[in-house]
């Protein structure tokens, strides 16, 4: 099994076996088009620790060959149905995955960005699902606080948006 080297943002070089690294669409494409070279593939937008975590994820899931191919469009995805996609993503998550996400928020977001950058759809789904769950049951103010989002609405805009979206909140303004 061939070994690929990845160079993280901080200069750390991590060796990964090809079957593990090919869970990343980005890396798969590079290997297909350009082949394996002795110099490491630079991933300057991912730090060493985050890359290590992602390699752990790859190691656990390396047996699943479907993750080394571009994902097939899911039934219902053509109709823009998120239901089927969400159900499918949840069905793919195991105990390791849930444990994997028991990390602080900053790391969670970094992993989300890295999963997007490296094109690892199941990991992106996993993290997205985790973040979405964190949003459940929160008021707008609580969400702003948790996710550190600045309020950039004018009072009029804010009023309008709250009015338009009142249908999806319960009586206490919770999602």
């Amino acid at each position, binding site marked *: 099994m061939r070994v690929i080297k990845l160079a993280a943002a901080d200069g750390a070089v991590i060796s990964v076996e090809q079957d593990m690294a090919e869970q990343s669409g980005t890396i798969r494409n590079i290997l297909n*088009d350009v082949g394996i070279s002795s110099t490491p593939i630079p991933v300057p*937008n991912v730090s060493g620790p985050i890359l290590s975590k992602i390699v752990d994820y790859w190691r656990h899931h390396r047996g699943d060959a479907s993750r080394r191919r571009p994902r097939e469009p899911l039934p219902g995805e053509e109709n823009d149905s998120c239901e089927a996609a969400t159900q499918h993503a949840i069905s793919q998550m195991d105990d390791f995955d849930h444990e994997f996400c028991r990390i602080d928020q900053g790391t969670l977001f970094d992993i989300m960005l890295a999963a997007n950058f490296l094109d690892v759809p199941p990991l992106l789904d996993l993290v997205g699902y985790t973040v979405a769950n964190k949003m459940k049951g929160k008021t707008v103010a609580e969400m702003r606080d948790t*996710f550190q989002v600045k309020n950039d609405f004018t009072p009029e805009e804010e009023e309008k948006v709250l009015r338009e979206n009142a249908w999806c909140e319960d009586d206490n303004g919770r999602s």
Partner: protein
Amino acid sequence: MSNESEEKRAKGLEFKNVGNKHFKAGEFEQALKQYYYALLHLRGLNDNPMALSKAKDPEDIKEEDVTEHDKELSNIYSNMAMCQMRLAKYDRVISNANQALKSNPFNKKAKFKLAQGLIREGSVIRAAKILDELEKDSPDDPAFAAERRNIAVKDKEADAKQRKDLGGMFSRGTIEK
């Protein structure tokens, strides 16, 4: 943008320039490698996790909303599609062209590459639609006319094949009574 980001951006653009040189020299695989390295440095510079969840409906985006950064990414993908064309890897042409259009739905070069890739893969109807769109803006472009001829050739081939496959269909086999 922070110093670190500025550095990455500069590196990314350098890789792109080297890629362009390789392309001009006809060294398409080398060019691809440089373009990949450019993307690895340029992608993710402007990322904000909340932006990932915003579903970008192509209908909603206006041309003036596309950032310079996204235009740059789109051009790199579109250059990659050109390399793939010269390497005759038509499925990759379609992939790269689609990636280019994700970053900048108004990238005409990328649209044209998509059409070319689709024609060679046999999806002539979709390709014709794209050419229709492109021809509205540049009706006399000889490149479009050339691809129309390619479509006509593919149509003829498909027709001939169909005749061969279906010919005599009703006289084949016997029905069990």
